[in-house]
Structures are given as structure tokens and as C-alpha cells.
């Protein structure tokens, strides 16, 4: 697999998911995510998996959760309109602690918006699209190689934390084909499905936890009695109306991820060592932003980039560290202004944070971002 090939981002996600052990895909095609479903339909039968095209996006994620409870690592892929439909069951997966990966290849919204046109307008929906106090993991790739890597990583995180994970892509990277060299199979780390450590006779409780606060819920059909519900439940898995149980349950959902935050929250620092200014970007926009950073450097501006690999939980510490060192942060995003609010919050006033928003169905040009960089630098002179 070490030979370089031309590969599309969406295809790379499918290949990564298969490597991570995904054996079920329930989906409903929607541009610009459809190639993921097509590739999964091609690959899953070859590895003994199942591909089911469901009647709609809600049924798709329902089938994915069912398959996951029955022991299969499972994934679905969609775009904005389908992502909206899936939100109810994403919340269910969060409360019932069912591992699942939901790929959202963002396009222009709201509603059916601009099919096949690039946008990054689902940043906040990825975090808060479903109701209630749930934790969320969302990661976002900027290259085709990273689409493959994050196809694996999303599945690993879902299994490790028994948690729905959003692979937050955009049309730019999803449809991009580029030269890619995939890792050797032996270099790929796969997190296995968690198994019960006790038998029924030893007093197994499906939602009991150890030090990592993640339950080892038995797969259906493996001899355990399991009850799964979206109602707040205790260690038995059965609903409880107790305020104490309620508080403990919601605390644990958040804490299981926050105590292992370093495993989840990842950023990439590019040219930041001597930087006086910074760009914070993610996904396909980071590609154009980095080109603009390189162009501005050639003109003598000491600027670097913090690339957010993880969108949720938000990399507040990393952003603050940058904000403390620079005179200004520019946030280019293909939406009306979503992530910029989080960055302002994380910067705690240590430096000005400026938004460069674009929402006309086109991607940024390097010149547009460079111009905003120069305006930020000029404003400080």
C-alpha cells in the first residue's frame, strides 16, 4: 500500500473506516458525500461487511446504531440536510453510549442550500445539533491522507469512548483528489470493541464503569441481558428518576472524555515559533489559509497557523497559548462566523481576534486571506 496514487478524500475516508474495522454502513446518498457510500458499497462485501441503503437519513443512523449494538463497528455519511435529520439519534447514541461515526461533508445551507458547493456552516450543529447536555467529538481533515487517517481515528474514538463521533469534512477536501501514500497495514492502530470484564454471575452491570469512566456494554447476542434507553439510566441500564443519578449520569458523559482530553484534542502548529500574528483555520479552508501564510511570510510578515484537527472538544488551551504570544489572530471560515466565537472565548482578550467570513458557495482565494492578514498587520502599526 506504500505506492503513491491519486485518491479522493471521500474514498480515503471509506478506506480508512474499513481499515479501522467498520463492517456496517447504513446510508442515504447526498452530495457531496455520496462517494463515501459508493466506496463502502464496493468494499464492505469484500470484507464480510454489510451495506444497506436505507429509506432516508434518519433510518440510516438508526440502522448504524442497531448494527453497533449488535457488535459491528458502524458508520454513516451525509451532508447538511441529512445531518439535520440525524440529530435526534445522535443524541440517543450519546445518552445510550453507542459507538458510531457520522461523516458530515458540509455544503452550503441552510436547508438544501447549494448542493455540491463548499461551506463550513455545520460547526455549531456538530456541537449542539442535538438537544441536552451531551459531550461531542468532531474532527476535521485538510488533506486526502488525513481523510484516511481520520477515517480510522473517528472509529477508534467512537469505540474508545462509546460515543458518537462526527467526522466534519467539507466539499473541498471530500471531493479533492490528490497524491497520497497510505501507511503500511502494520503501522495502523485499531481500537477494538470493548468487551465486558465480568460475567453475569460475577454481577455484570452494562453501565458500570472503571477508572476511564467508559462502560463496557456487551454486544447484543453475546449472552448478556442488556437494556438500552435514551432515558437517563443507572448502571443497570434501566431508567431512573433520581436527581442524584441524573446528575451523576450527565457528569460522567462529559468526564469520560474530559479526563482523556489529550487523547482527543489535537492541533497542528505551522510556522508559529517566531510568529507575531496567527491564522486559526480548519478543514479545506486551512489549505488556502496556509498558502496565504506562506505568501505573507515571503513579504516579511511573521505569521503562522494553528490548524484545528479537533473541532470539538474545542482546543481552548492551544488557542490561548497562541493568543498570548501574538498581536492578532485571523479566523477565515466558510460561514457567517461560527468558530470565531469559540476562538475569541479561548483567547480571553489576550489579542484581537478577527473574522474573515465567506458564504457565497466559493472557497477563499489565497489573495483574499493574505489581504486580511495585511489589514490586520497594518492596523497594528
Amino acid at each position: 500500500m506504500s505506492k503513491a496514487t491519486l485518491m479522493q478524500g471521500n474514498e480515503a475516508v471509506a478506506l480508512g473506516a474499513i481499515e479501522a474495522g467498520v463492517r456496517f454502513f447504513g446510508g442515504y446518498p447526498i452530495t457531496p458525500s455520496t462517494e463515501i457510500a459508493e466506496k463502502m458499497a464496493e468494499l464492505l462485501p469484500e470484507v464480510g461487511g454489510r451495506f444497506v441503503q436505507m429509506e432516508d437519513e434518519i433510518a440510516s443512523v438508526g440502522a448504524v446504531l442497531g448494527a453497533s449494538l449488535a457488535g459491528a463497528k458502524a458508520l454513516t455519511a451525509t451532508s447538511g440536510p441529512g445531518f439535520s435529520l440525524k440529530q435526534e439519534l445522535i443524541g440517543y447514541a450519546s445518552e445510550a453510549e453507542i459507538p458510531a461515526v457520522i461523516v458530515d461533508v458540509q455544503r452550503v445551507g441552510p436547508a438544501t442550500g447549494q448542493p455540491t458547493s463548499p461551506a463550513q456552516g455545520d460547526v455549531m450543529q456538530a456541537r449542539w445539533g442535538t438537544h441536552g447536555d451531551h459531550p461531542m467529538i468532531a474532527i476535521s481533515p485538510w488533506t486526502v491522507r488525513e481523510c484516511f487517517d481520520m477515517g480510522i481515528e473517528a472509529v477508534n474514538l467512537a469505540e474508545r469512548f462509546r460515543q458518537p463521533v462526527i467526522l466534519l469534512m467539507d466539499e473541498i477536501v471530500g471531493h479533492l483528489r490528490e497524491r497520497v501514500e497510505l501507511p503500511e497495514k502494520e503501522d495502523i492502530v485499531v481500537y477494538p470493541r470493548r468487551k465486558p470484564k465480568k460475567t453475569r454471575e460475577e454481577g455484570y452491570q452494562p453501565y458500570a464503569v472503571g477508572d476511564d469512566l467508559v462502560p463496557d456494554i456487551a454486544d447484543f447476542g453475546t449472552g448478556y441481558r442488556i437494556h438500552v434507553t435514551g432515558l437517563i439510566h443507572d448502571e443497570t441500564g434501566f431508567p431512573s428518576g433520581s436527581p442524584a443519578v441524573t446528575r451523576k449520569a450527565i457528569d460522567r458523559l462529559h468526564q469520560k472524555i474530559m479526563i482523556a482530553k489529550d487523547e482527543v484534542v489535537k492541533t497542528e502548529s505551522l510556522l508559529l515559533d517566531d510568529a507575531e500574528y496567527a491564522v486559526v483555520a480548519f478543514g479545506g479552508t486551512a489549505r488556502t489559509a496556509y498558502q496565504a501564510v506562506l505568501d505573507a511570510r515571503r513579504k516579511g510578515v511573521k505569521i503562522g497557523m494553528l490548524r484545528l484537527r479537533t473541532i470539538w472538544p474545542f482546543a481552548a488551551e492551544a488557542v490561548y497559548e497562541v493568543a498570548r504570544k501574538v498581536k492578532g489572530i485571523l479566523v477565515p471560515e466558510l460561514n457567517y462566523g461560527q468558530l470565531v466565537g469559540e476562538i475569541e472565548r479561548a483567547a480571553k482578550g489576550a489579542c484581537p481576534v478577527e473574522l474573515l467570513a465567506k458564504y457565497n458557495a466559493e472557497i477563499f482565494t489565497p489573495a483574499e486571506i493574505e489581504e486580511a492578514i495585511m489589514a490586520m498587520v497594518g492596523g497594528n502599526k
Partner: protein
Amino acid sequence: MSEMRFSGSGGQGVITCAIILAQAAVAEGKNAIQSQAYGPAARGGSSKAEVIISDDAIYHPHVEAPDFVLAMTQEAADKYWHDLKDDGILLLDENLVPNPPAFAKTIRIPITHIAVSDIGKALFANIVALGATVRITGAVSYDVVAKCVADRVPPATVESNMKALKAGYDAADALMK
């Protein structure tokens, strides 16, 4: 670095044309990326694909000032030639673009006509265009492109596609001598 744009109408195969060119560049050990834009309609809507070939890393994924533009419809020609570099080249389907834009280095080849008359189907127009592109741009070698075409198309059509590639290459060659 070489920046190329392939444009036409959905169904003419311009995206496939771009993908094969980028595949050939990667097969030659170069860095290449390919992006595309198309409307909600699969057939008949406008369709555009871009390829960047470079020895260095490529970050921004879209073409900024193309060295080469292929236009397979009048609409695509009118829309996509403006940002060509001054020394760039515009390749048009001679019959489908009756009113060529006023660009100095324009090459007109009856691409779709060649596909119909020499190979038997308009379906091969994109491979005819690919052959012409290879001759005009010199971006990748003919033999590597031929191999990439053969690997991609259904086995029963390899022979016809090879004929189409050669026909396009020869048509461009005749004009460039």
C-alpha cells in the same frame, strides 16, 4: 507548476479527463491535485474540473491563473478563459464553440466531430480532448497517459479509447507543427 482547467457540460466527461491527467502526473512521480465543480444537474449542467501539477507541495486546491483551458461548450468557453495566463493556451471544440473568445493563443480542434467520425461515438470526445491536451501542454508523457486510460476504462473499450487518445494527439500535433 502547471495549472489546467477542463470545462464543458455535464456528461461530456471533462472531469474524467482531468482525473486521468492527474493520475498520470502522480504515476510519473509528480505531485498533483484535481478538483471539480458542477451544478445539481448530473447531465447538461455546467461542469468544470481543474488539475495542478507541481514538484512542490500544493495547498490551495483551485487553479488561480491557468496555463491551459479546455472548453467543450460555448458557455464554458465564455465563462472560463478570462483568467488564463498571457502565455497560456485555450483549446476549444471547434464545432461546439462557434464564437471563440478573443484570446491570442487559441487552438481549435473538432474534438467531438473526431470522436464521432473516427471512433464512432461522441462518448470518446473527452479522450480525444485528453490526447490533444497531452500534445499541447506536454505536462505528462503520452505513454503514461495511455496506460492510465487503459487502466480506467471498461476492458471492451480500451481499443477505441486508445484510438481516441491518438486521434486527439495527432490532431493537435498537425496544428502545432
